[in-house]
């Protein structure tokens, strides 16, 4: 928990190794001085500044910047150092601002080495000051504490150092300024504009201080005493205006200004007009990154559907308008004389071409934006959402909990064959899967055996992905392979030992497997309906079950078919899912009796096929199964890990 300090407030520090983060809108100088117990700096060797950035236990940046990180090791400070003053100053040798009043309030945070904020402080109420002591770390009875100081100096660094009892303050200040000017001349570019985040207002760093510009003379020290600070009280500031110099404490919360907020910084525009915003992975709503990515992928899906709809309707309209115009030319007798007809026809075609070009330009703009988004989203996806080629699968580890969704494949439209949208379905599956190994119109090239094999391979890939997505022991896969034709395809599953048992073969095996699962569905349903989930038999596996059926309806009698339909209808609600690898033609002897079964399952294909419709516009999307890259061992690798986790029960 971060303590938000106000001026004068202190806060204990948990450790001695700390980082101090400084953010200001403009490049500023950050430094630190050490003081002894009499609050005096013992010499120039006790000042860390860009010219001498490291001291024992202290390190500061070498140049002026909008953001700084100061490393502090309080245990390694020189003997006798009791105070560390963190100071900020505006660079003098550049055409930047000359007083803190004209930049956004600097923000300082003390963080642990792991980045957790311990305390933070926003230095408000600055006006004519060009140097400020932001924080003080001090030793109090062998424990270190931090205090928000916020003491500004109109006379700049020289005044500040003199105030800390350093005799060579003037010389050191000019050394620091020289070092900073050298640093600025070295720097290549101003830091990029930062978007204003949350309520923390920072000025966007614009107007780069170009090297080699006329140096602005440092502001004349108004008072030799060094405390000549006369901030004009901000009108409307609650209560009596506090003079930061008089040591009194301003109890107003620095972030909760009720009136007279600092002038709004020129916020960096999220995107230049006409330019799309830079896509970011996880840029959607959701409680977790996974949910945000899921929603983002669905958002991309919807955007692509709608963009394509806009393009298609514009092109359709252009064509129908051209047809109408051409018809009109044809039916107009005047157009048969001379060139008027040709001219009218040419005009109609030109109008058509113009509109199609415009529509294409709009489509290309949107596709480019979506492609850029896909490029950042795809590598950020967790395993269950990721393609098999993604590196996350190489480093696969059994998950602790069920992911939100599973990638079943890719979807794309003919307008943009390269832009593939992950097809994510929610887990647990609401419908079984039907991997259609039959011939469909598009893939007449592949022969039947090849298709069957492809269907089996993609069934194995889907099953492996499901197994890998569930925590070990919470997902069990049963296989029915009545004729044993899928033995070689199922071999990876068998070898890795991730199946509940060997694939069931023969009519007896089919019956046994189906009966077991039917009984489970029945028992769980009864228990759920009567609200006695704890009355289930001890040996009943309550995890999710997947039944993979190959070669349907080979080996199935009428009773088995009925059981299968029962599982397809009732199973998903109680965690029993069905994956059929089947060609509908094989079961044609059942006639329309099995149509409800096919309809109840989500049909996917082992080869790209355009049979899926989106829920918004109803385009036909080409589905592409998630294929393991050729020659890749990722599937074996993942299955081995799953099998290992199942055996050891470890996660």
């Amino acid at each position, binding site marked *: 928990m971060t303590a938000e300090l106000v001026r004068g407030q202190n806060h204990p520090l948990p450790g001695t190794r700390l980082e101090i983060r400084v953010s200001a809108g403009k490049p500023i100088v950050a430094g630190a001085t050490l003081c002894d117990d009499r609050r005096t700096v013992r010499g120039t060797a006790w000042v860390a500044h860009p010219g001498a950035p490291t001291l024992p236990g202290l390190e500061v940046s070498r140049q002026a910047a909008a953001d700084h990180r100061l490393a502090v090791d309080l245990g390694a400070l020189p003997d006798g150092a009791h105070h560390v003053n963190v100071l900020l100053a505006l660079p003098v040798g550049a055409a930047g601002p000359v007083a803190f009043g004209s930049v956004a309030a600097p923000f300082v945070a003390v963080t642990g080495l792991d980045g957790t904020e311990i305390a933070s402080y926003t230095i408000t109420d600055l006006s004519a000051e060009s140097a400020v002591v932001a924080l003080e770390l001090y030793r109090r009875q062998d424990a270190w504490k931090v205090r928000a100081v916020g003491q500004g100096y109109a006379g700049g660094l020289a005044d500040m150092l003199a105030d800390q009892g350093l005799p060579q303050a003037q010389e050191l200040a000019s050394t620091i300024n020289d070092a900073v000017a050298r640093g600025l001349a070295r720097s290549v570019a101003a830091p990029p504009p930062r978007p204003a985040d949350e309520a923390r207002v920072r000025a966007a760093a614009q107007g780069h201080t170009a090297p080699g510009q006329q140096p602005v003379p440092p502001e004349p020290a108004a008072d030799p005493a060094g405390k000549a600070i006369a901030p004009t009280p901000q009108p409307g500031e609650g209560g009596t205006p506090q003079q930061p110099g008089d040591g009194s404490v301003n109890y107003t919360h620095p972030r909760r200004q009720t009136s007279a907020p600092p002038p709004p910084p020129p916020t960096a525009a999220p995107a230049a*007009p006409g330019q799309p915003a830079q896509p970011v992975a996880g840029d959607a709503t959701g409680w977790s990154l996974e949910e945000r990515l899921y929603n983002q992928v669905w958002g991309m899906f919807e955007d692509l559907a709608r963009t394509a*709809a*806009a393009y298609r309707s514009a092109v359709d309209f252009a064509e129908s308008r051209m047809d109408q115009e051409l018809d009109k030319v044809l039916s107009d007798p005047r157009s048969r004389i001379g060139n008027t007809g040709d001219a009218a026809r040419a005009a109609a075609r030109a109008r058509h071409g113009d509109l199609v070009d415009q529509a294409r330009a709009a489509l290309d703009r949107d596709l480019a934006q979506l492609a850029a988004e896909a490029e950042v989203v795809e590598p950020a996806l967790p395993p269950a959402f990721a393609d098999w080629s993604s590196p996350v699968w190489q480093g696969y580890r059994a998950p602790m909990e069920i992911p939100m969704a599973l990638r079943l494949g890719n979807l794309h439209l003919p307008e943009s064959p390269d832009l593939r949208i992950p097809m994510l379905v929610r887990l647990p599956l609401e419908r079984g899967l039907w991997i259609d190994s039959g011939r469909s119109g598009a893939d007449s090239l592949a022969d039947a055996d090849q298709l069957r094999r492809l269907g089996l391979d993609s069934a194995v890939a889907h099953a492996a992905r499901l197994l890998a997505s569930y925590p070990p022991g919470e997902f069990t896969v049963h296989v029915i392979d009545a004729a044993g034709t899928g033995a070689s395809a199922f071999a990876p599953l068998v070898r890795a030992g991730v199946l509940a048992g060997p694939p069931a073969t023969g009519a007896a095996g089919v019956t046994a497997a189906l009966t077991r699962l039917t009984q489970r569905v029945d028992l769980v349903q009864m228990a759920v309906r009567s609200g006695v989930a704890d009355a289930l038999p001890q040996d009943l596996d309550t995890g999710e079950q997947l039944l993979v059926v190959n070669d349907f309806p080979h080996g199935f009698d009428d009773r088995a078919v009925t059981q299968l339909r029962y599982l397809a209808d009732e199973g998903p609600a109680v965690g029993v899912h069905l994956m059929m690898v089947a060609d509908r033609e094989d079961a044609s002897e059942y006639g329309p009796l099995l149509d409800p079964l096919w309809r109840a399952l989500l049909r996917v294909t082992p080869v790209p096929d355009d049979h899926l419709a989106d829920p918004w516009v109803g385009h036909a999307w080409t589905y592409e199964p998630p294929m393991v890259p050729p020659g890749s061992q990722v599937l074996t690798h993942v299955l081995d890990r799953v099998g290992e986790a199942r055996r050891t029960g470890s996660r």
Partner: protein
Amino acid sequence: MTVNMTKGQAISLQKNDGGALTSVRMGLGWQAAPRRGLFGTRTREVDLDASAVLFADKQPVDVVFFRHLVSDDGSVRHTGDNLVGGVGQGGDDEAILVDLQRVPVHIDQIVFTVNSFTGQTFQEVQNAFCRLVDETNGQELARFTLDGGGQYTAQIMAKVHRAGAGWQMTALGNPANGRTFQDLMPAILPHL
């Protein structure tokens, strides 16, 4: 700065700084007028519906209304049906958001209509208005008051149409009769 529009008035949807508007909201708000009766000022619920019809060259291409909340291309969105009105007491009860930059290139006019779904005439409605808001900064560009309602159940409010590279809005305010936008089509066509 709000322009209080009168019937037939046209305004150009340019920002004050000359930039084109990117996204506008057509908001509709109303309250049922109190009726004198046995129980004093009991009000009956009035369901007004806002619809937007997208035209390409005078052909209706798409429509956004309470049963089709998003145009196929996603550029026009209805925020959802409000059955009683008066929720915001002056705020928008129904709103249609138009992302002008994403409207497909062939759509050249968008007509906004209001229908009384429950069949009451606008005499039984009070404080009804339709306004056009710049969605990017919430600034009201134009307001069109529906008061002085007569014996009609629908009104063709306004149209937003392409003018050069940008868009223009014309207040129409034509009374008509009908339960949904379909009934209004004959009345809309003369305004295109």
